[in-house]
């Protein structure tokens, strides 16, 4: 007998209230559906709020000093995104994305977002890693805040039910279809069931299994694992993005993000000898040879004249820059605290305060450092997950009927490495599409599916056993051990030996995590919440590690130092698909769709 629980019924249930979830909610409501939105935190605190640099969309608003417009367009954005993702991306997803991103950004302005302006009065765009032209529409360095607040206000103004501080742990199935979700209120620990005709998963990424990450406590892989448990296929799980510039000092701030906008606004990366090491030609991959400045002087001229000079190599994609930073530190050329220097002082205090105000505040308040006068110390930090739930490009449908996914939890757009700024446009383009598709699906359903109490009972036992157990382990201790192991052996540079060790540790921790114990009651008890989270994280880590072991090559974020080459013959043509198979993980390499001629030709045209 299950204890009593609240029941809410919606046409469309949106799980997650970051940019993707809120955009989906707006669409589903505008399509005439009743909508419930689940926030794990308070409304507006989701990870979107931490995005800084900008939202990528080829609006082509920027001109050179002679007045000529930069010839940007979806085609160039397409080529940049595919190259940045090392061609592991789903081309159709990228095509839809680059075509629709400008429309979504302009729509955001109609909703109330206030972007920085060009002298002509249009939305201002800044350069960013891997983007050929200035393409990041921005508000200083707090673009994510602008985006989430705008979508939050619009969503609330559109009319829906928002459930704050609810943690969902289980998708409920009926006859293979998703019919709802189960979880608890964080505030009271009481249980709640949401019945829905369609569910949109927009739960973001997972980085908390690493010691140093820019992710908040929420990034535990719970949404991903709910989909996995429901039978959904996962894609590219080995692809974890290491952002090249995380804070490294003071220790309290280790892992916190320093926006790529610093480099976009002309920041230098330097080693302890003062060399701009990105100009070391070994660091520029063959794919990008000849497209970046080869001398620092050209990089300096580019700041003023973007038409006649090439971008500095600090603006190579994130995977490339992260590897270079790692190599500099390994070679003994790192700074005092084990990172490298990021220096923007040459841009002058006035410019920095205008364009990078929150970076200035962040270092001033938390790092006791004035970035207008001194260089920052940075090192790669776990930032983003390119992998996730496999979805159809047009409808964001997962392989489970009734379940849709959008944003970071979904996979396919970014391939092996995401370009900065593409995530904010991702969540709007595919948030809208997921909301539309879920609403259309909900309308084909005459009634809500039946809830199977036995599914709730099983999950409830898993949830409550740490509180009733007489003995067991502390989930925080297991979490810390997992973080140390992942940080050591599943980080930026991977080996067979390290990954094997990592997998063994994870499996042993999974055994120990079967018996957890936590004190305190159910009212807002973070220790109890941690117990469920650590189980999600362990399974997610297992899938990541297994995939990283299987992909015996280096591509994008996956850098195997024992297979330090691109294998275009085999791995360049295959994605790894993971799926639940009883208690085991089934992983298969599946052939990618080849690029169709109308997109292949773009690589010739935009050279």
């Amino acid at each position, binding site marked *: 007998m299950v204890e009593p629980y609240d029941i809410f019924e919606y046409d469309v249930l949106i799980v997650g209230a970051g940019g993707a979830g809120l955009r989906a909610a707006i669409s589903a409501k505008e399509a005439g559906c009743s909508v419930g939105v689940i926030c794990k935190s308070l409304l507006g605190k989701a990870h979107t709020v*931490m995005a800084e640099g900008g939202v990528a969309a080829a609006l082509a608003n920027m001109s050179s000093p002679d007045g000529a417009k930069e010839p940007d367009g979806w085609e160039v954005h397409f080529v940049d995104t595919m190259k940045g993702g090392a061609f592991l991306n789903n081309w159709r997803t990228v095509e839809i994305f680059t075509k629709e991103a400008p429309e979504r950004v302009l729509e955001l*302005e109609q*909703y109330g977002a206030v972007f920085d302006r060009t002298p002509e009065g249009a939305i201002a765009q800044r350069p960013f890693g891997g983007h050929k032209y200035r393409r990041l529409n921005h508000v200083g360095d707090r673009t994510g805040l602008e985006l989430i607040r705008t979508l939050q206000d619009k969503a609330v103004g559109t009319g829906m039910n928002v459930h704050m501080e609810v943690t969902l742990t289980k998708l409920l199935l009926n006859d293979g279809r998703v019919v709802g979700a189960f979880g608890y209120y964080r505030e009271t620990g009481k249980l709640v069931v949401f019945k829905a005709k369609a569910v949109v998963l927009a739960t973001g990424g997972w980085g908390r299994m690493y010691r140093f990450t820019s992710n908040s406590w929420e990034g535990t892989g719970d949404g991903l694992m709910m989909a996995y448990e429901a039978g959904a296929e996962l894609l590219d799980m080995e692809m974890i993005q290491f952002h090249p510039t995380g804070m490294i000092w003071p220790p309290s701030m280790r892992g916190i993000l320093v926006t790529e906008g610093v480099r976009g606004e002309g920041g230098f990366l330097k080693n302890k000898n003062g060399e701009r090491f990105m100009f070391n030609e070994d660091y520029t991959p063959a794919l990008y040879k000849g497209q970046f400045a080869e001398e620092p002087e050209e990089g300096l001229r580019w700041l003023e004249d973007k038409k006649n000079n090439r971008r500095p190599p600090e603006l190579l994609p994130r995977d490339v820059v992260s590897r270079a930073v790692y190599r500099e530190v390994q070679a003994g050329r790192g700074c005092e605290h084990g990172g490298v220097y990021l220096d923007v002082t040459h841009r002058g205090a006035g410019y920095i305060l205008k364009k990078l105000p929150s970076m200035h505040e962040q270092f001033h308040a938390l790092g006791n450092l004035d970035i207008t006068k001194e260089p920052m110390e940075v090192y790669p930090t776990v930032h983003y997950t390119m992998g996730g739930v496999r979805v159809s490009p047009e409808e964001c449908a997962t392989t489970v009927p009734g379940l849709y996914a959008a944003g970071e939890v979904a996979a396919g757009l970014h391939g092996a490495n995401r370009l900065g700024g593409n995530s904010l446009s991702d969540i709007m383009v595919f948030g809208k599409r997921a909301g539309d598709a879920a609403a259309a699906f909900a309308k084909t359903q005459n009634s809500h599916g039946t809830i199977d109490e036995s599914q709730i009972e099983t999950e409830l036992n898993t949830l409550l056993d740490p509180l009733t157990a007489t003995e067991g382990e502390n989930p925080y201790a297991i979490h810390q051990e997992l973080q140390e192991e992942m940080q050591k052996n599943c980080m930026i540079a991977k080996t067979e030996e390290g990954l094997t060790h990592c997998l063994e540790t994870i499996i042993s921790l999974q055994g120990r995590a079967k018996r957890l114990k936590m004190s305190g009651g159910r009212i807002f008890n973070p220790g109890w919440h941690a117990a469920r989270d650590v189980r999600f994280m362990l399974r997610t880590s297992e899938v990541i590690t297994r995939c990283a072991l299987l992909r015996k090559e280096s591509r994008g974020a996956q850098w195997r130092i024992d297979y330090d080459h691109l294998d275009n013959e085999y791995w360049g043509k295959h994605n790894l698909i993971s799926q639940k198979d009883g208690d085991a993980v089934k992983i298969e390499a599946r052939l990618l769709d080849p690029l169709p001629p109308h997109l292949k030709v773009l690589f010739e045209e935009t050279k």
Partner: protein
Amino acid sequence: MEKVTIKVFRGTPEEGEISTYETPTFPGMVVLDAIHYIQQNLEPSLACRWNCKAAKCGSCSAEVNGHPKLMCKSSIEEYPSGEITVTPLKTFPLVKDLVTDVSWNYRVSSRIPPLVPKPDAAGKPFNMQQIDVERVQEFRKCIECFLCQDVCHILREHDRTDAFYGPRQMVKLASLDMHPMDNLDRKESIKNDGGVGYCNITKCCTEVCPEHIHITDNAIIPLKERIADEYYDPIQGLLRKIGIIKRTTKQPFDSVPNEQTTVHSAR
């Protein structure tokens, strides 16, 4: 300082007390680090909110030695005595330990309609100059930490949540009212629903704002002036009557349908 003494309120609305913990220190340590240390090593059930730990999300609001602060932005070094007391926001109903029920703020916020673009700007890219949006951009820096709501004496001492939206929502109203493309006549709502007249400009809200928004000077006072011009200035009233000052061409506030949004909290 190798160790710091953290006194934290532990309890529920029914009962509670200050508990004392000792935590080790490390360079750059902030109060939130100390709370995390306690959670992970001493008292796992200690409740607090946090997300970004970089002063961007506004979740970890609390009162540190009696001052409303973001715990992630309160350096241990600011408290050389080595003793720090952390208590929940006083203005909002307690849930447990450092967590309070702030859902009222969201319910109020949902009564403020979002931007309604002017007819000639609807559906196409806005043309706006940087200088014209700068003031609005200042307001939009707000991270909704609700420290200003916590310190506002209309809400804190007089409990007038029925009459005054509070500084956070004044900032939101100002960001819409001063948006060059907004076409909604919000004055009556600012006066009657928002209760802008209740603010008596003590500037406490401005002092605690972690985003350094000039809440009183740049948001509330201009809103008050607009209301005074519209409703209380006899000369302007006369000039309006005889047509020298044109009446607003913005669309009336109640022309926007009030969509039913419910913000649930568990209790």
